[in-house]
């Protein structure tokens, strides 16, 4: 009963999103609640950007709901799972369509908690619950900054409505705009798992594959890029914030691509590549390429969801996440092989996939902006991406491997549809001037990607059973641990907080508590003195009462 409802509900919302996309831009609003200061409004804000992203979100969610029926067939927790995916879709749509920044924040946080629940889907496993907590806390840390950014902009503009905030940007002081933009970036960096808040996303792969596809690839993690695009006038008015974004993006895209190059867990490879591809979007935003960023957001959503769903199919067939236990699957799982090949090609930016067009547009925008730092970072990433994609492709589908069977049709149908979209979506971009491929960037990025592919292939051909990543020797450990950032956080932040907590608990119990208990025993000692007066003689009591009454009466008269 759950499955038809889940699919039907998502399909209806997808239809609604398509209708919104066909309508003109509009905005509705009603006061949700007075606050004593700026009121919070509730309403929809529909423009080209938001309706396009809404269509993407609902269609991917639909594909994932269909796929999950097959993927979760033997899982007793499927109803909870489907409900949470539905709630997540609602939250993401709130982020996309909200007319008020605080409503956007409501959706933003609910997405986070859905992500927490879904990562912890297998909650009897300690690794899953630990990953869930880590992801929630790291993103919530960012979200607090995000909320403060909303405060800065909302109070500066005198309204939390997005339209008003954007309209008020020219009237706000540059300091206000910069503070607001930088604080928003803290939340964006956390949600999009960019450096230095990146380490939760690979761990989040403890969740089921459809969750990784929807939340940790296509939608939630990309919401940061969406918000920057939505509030782009704010960021354009704060160039320093865009520079910061550029540095974060370049560091994240190269660092995570290196990590993806050596990781053995297929889903973690994809997670690192998600970080890297999100950085590509941020790089585009940092150099003024808003359209290019959104086009890459859309194409990435499709091909990365496809890749995760394929990975889910492969993992469920093989029974392991590790590529060292896969291999040779191209014959036995031909449909998964074909569709995942399309996904990998899109990730590596091979024409004519959507990934080729959108990534190329980003490279071109960096070139136009004469931002050679971002330009070089993007080209290097293109090479690394092609290399780790080739490695993953070869390690999964070629060489020796186990004997397995293709997955059910419920799962392959969404794969095929997404693969078709991933192949065709790029051509839609040709309608827009800024998305058409350009000669220099195309040639350069294709050449560098080609080097990456060929290099990995040559190393792999020497011994197909061996991991090409072994050839880089000791660097493998460094890359694989994402340059040790996780261990660093574990040793400093996590342990520091726990030590502080133990200390507080100890102090509270001994110092503060004992002094209070001291007053307790002190009072009892005092009571012992008073007990002397309680000698049981009624005359004594009556005298005392009378004397008190006289005293009070005198007191009242004097006081007046």
């Amino acid at each position: 009963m759950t499955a038809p409802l889940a699919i039907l509900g998502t399909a209806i919302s997808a239809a609604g999103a398509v209708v919104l996309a066909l309508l003109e831009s509009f905005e509705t609003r009603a006061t949700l609640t007075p606050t004593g200061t700026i009121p919070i409004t509730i309403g929809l804000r529909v423009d080209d950007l938001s309706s396009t992203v809404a269509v993407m979100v609902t269609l991917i969610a639909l594909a994932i709901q269909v796929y999950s029926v097959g993927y979760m067939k033997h899982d007793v927790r499927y109803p909870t799972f489907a409900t949470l995916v539905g709630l997540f879709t609602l939250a993401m749509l709130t982020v996309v369509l909200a007319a008020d920044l605080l409503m956007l924040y409501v959706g933003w946080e609910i997405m986070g908690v859905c992500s927490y629940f879904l990562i912890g889907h297998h909650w009897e496993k300690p690794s899953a619950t630990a990953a869930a907590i880590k992801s929630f806390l790291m993103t919530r840390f960012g979200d607090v900054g995000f909320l403060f950014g909303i405060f800065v902009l909302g109070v500066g503009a005198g309204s939390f409505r997005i339209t008003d905030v954007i309209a008020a940007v020219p009237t706000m002081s540059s300091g206000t705009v910069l503070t607001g933009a930088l604080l928003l970036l803290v939340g964006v960096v956390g949600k999009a798992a960019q450096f230095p808040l990146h380490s939760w996303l690979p761990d989040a792969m403890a969740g089921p594959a459809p969750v990784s596809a929807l939340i940790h690839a296509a939608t939630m993690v990309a919401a940061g890029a969406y918000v920057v695009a939505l509030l782009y006038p704010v960021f354009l008015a704060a160039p320093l914030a865009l520079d910061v974004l550029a540095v974060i993006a370049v560091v994240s895209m190269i660092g995570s691509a290196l990590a993806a190059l050596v990781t053995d867990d297929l889903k973690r490879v994809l997670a690192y590549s998600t970080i890297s591809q999100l950085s590509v979007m941020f790089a585009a935003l940092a150099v003024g390429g808003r359209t290019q960023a959104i086009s890459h957001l859309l194409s990435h959503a499709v091909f990365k969801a496809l890749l995760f769903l394929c990975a889910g199919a492969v993992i469920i067939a093989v029974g392991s996440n590790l590529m060292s236990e896969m291999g040779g699957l191209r014959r036995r799982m031909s449909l998964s092989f074909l569709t995942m090949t399309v996904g990998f090609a899109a990730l590596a930016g091979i024409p004519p996939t959507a990934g080729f067009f959108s990534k190329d547009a980003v490279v071109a925008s960096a070139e136009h902006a004469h931002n050679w730092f971002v330009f070089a970072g993007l080209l290097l990433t293109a090479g690394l991406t092609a290399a780790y994609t080739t490695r993953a492709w070869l390690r999964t589908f070629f060489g020796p491997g186990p004997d397995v069977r293709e997955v059910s049709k419920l799962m392959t149908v969404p794969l095929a549809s997404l693969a078709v979209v991933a192949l065709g979506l790029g051509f839609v971009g040709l309608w827009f001037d800024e998305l058409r491929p350009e000669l220099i960037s195309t040639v350069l990025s294709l050449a560098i990607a080609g080097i990456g592919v060929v290099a990995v292939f040559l190393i792999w051909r020497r011994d197909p059973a061996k991991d090409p990543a072994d050839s880089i020797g000791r660097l493998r450990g460094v890359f694989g641990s994402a340059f040790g950032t996780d261990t660093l956080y574990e040793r400093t932040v996590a342990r520091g907080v726990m030590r502080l907590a133990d200390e507080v608990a100890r102090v509270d119990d001994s110092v503060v508590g004992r002094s209070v208990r001291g007053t307790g025993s002190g009072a009892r000692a005092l009571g012992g003195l008073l007990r002397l007066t309680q000698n049981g003689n009624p005359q004594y009591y009556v005298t005392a009462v009378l004397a008190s009454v006289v005293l009070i009466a005198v007191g009242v008269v004097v006081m007046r």
Partner: protein
Amino acid sequence: MSVLPILLLAVPLAGCLAALATHRTATAVGLVTTGITFVLAVVTAFSVDYVRPGTHLITDVPWIPPLGIRFHLGVDGVSVPLVVLTALLCFLSMIYGARRGGTPDRPHAFVSLLLLTEVGMLGTFVALDLLLFFVFFEVVLIPMYALIAGWGGAQRGPAARQFILYTLLGSGVLLVGLLVVYLHTSTLDIVALAELGGTGMSHTVQVAAFVLVAGGLAVKVPMWPLHTWLPDAHSEAPTVGSVLLAGVLLKMGTYGLIRIALPILPDGARAVAPFLGALGVIGIVYAALACLAQRNLKRLIAFSSVGHMGFVLLGISTLTAAGINAALFANIAHGLITGLLFFLVGGMAERFGSTDMDKIGGGTLTLAPRLSVLLVIAAVASFGLPGLAGFWGEMLAMLAAFDPAPGLNRPLYLVFMVVAGIGAVLTAAYFLVMLRRVAQGTFAAWRKDQGVLDVTRAESLAWSPLVVLVFVVGIWPGLVLAPTAEAVGFYLGGR
């Protein structure tokens, strides 16, 4: 002259006496009385015209003429939500206490003490005379002491004694503060004093009086570092006692700050507010850290109350409409959520024989799925997930700290805001760790053989209103904020 506030007090008082006279039907008397009181509270909420300034449904007759003390009752948008919350929690507590197998020993004494507590709590929220307020404030203490000492856990004696001594000490300080106000203004009428707005008292007197009044109330809040009675009292109190203690008693302190300290002593408030704010945010972080190291569920939730009340204090300390609304909203939200949490932990203790997380052992999502799902919802609401009740109050408190009243040190308040934000992350941390230890994970095999009962019908009857309200208030915060925002607007406008 309105009978509603009088009835609000008279009905539970009559029930209190009636319960003493009965024996076996005590719980029935309690149920009927609290039920009627709840209906009266709802009627009160609907008969107030929130758009009109001032207090409503007023009863004002001389009480002790020589001292100028009047029996002055009335409500406005500030007190109505608290009145409804109090009546609701008392009613639900009675339902919980009346369930089969859950009836306490000596039910007539238990019920009558509980009803006496209700009289005091409701009286505190409807009193408009300083001494009347103080009397009701005190009326609550004794029955609560008796509830802890008579029906509590193993260490109930010391815990109850600490509770009564500590809070009485606070009351003493509060009384001195109220007398200082009286000596300088010759009136005890809260409405009249609020209209005076501090005229007749020099700056020094105001500051001194504010410190005394706020200091006395801060014990009840409880404000860090005056909180140490709370974890002990909670961990030893019976479930219903904990629910009322956290759900209502703590609010008497913050309500007193808003009703008395701010409007009557505005100069004092401006001088002392930054200290309130500082202690509030220290409380948030301190409580969160203490919770991270906690092994006992009841103590954890008790400490979490200190943190939540820190947000309330932060809101009050901004002296803005937004901040006071935040405080009032967070009060209601905390009452609903923490009331629910204590009910759930009481349920856990009955089923697993302990509130110690290590002894419960984990995996309760498998053993008692509905109970655990409710625990998850309450925990998530408590750390302030948007869309649930806990969010709006804390968000508004931080927003108010971002933009405090003119004359306050803004950079200082920005620091408060950031510290509160860090506290919010830590709050999420300890609740998630708690869920990981208790609800998630695997359970010991003997638990399965023991056969754990999931939520019973009586329990769901007592708990579901809270769950529903946590969602309703979270999705539609205007339900609480609309009445309070009007009242607070008049409040600050009239100063």
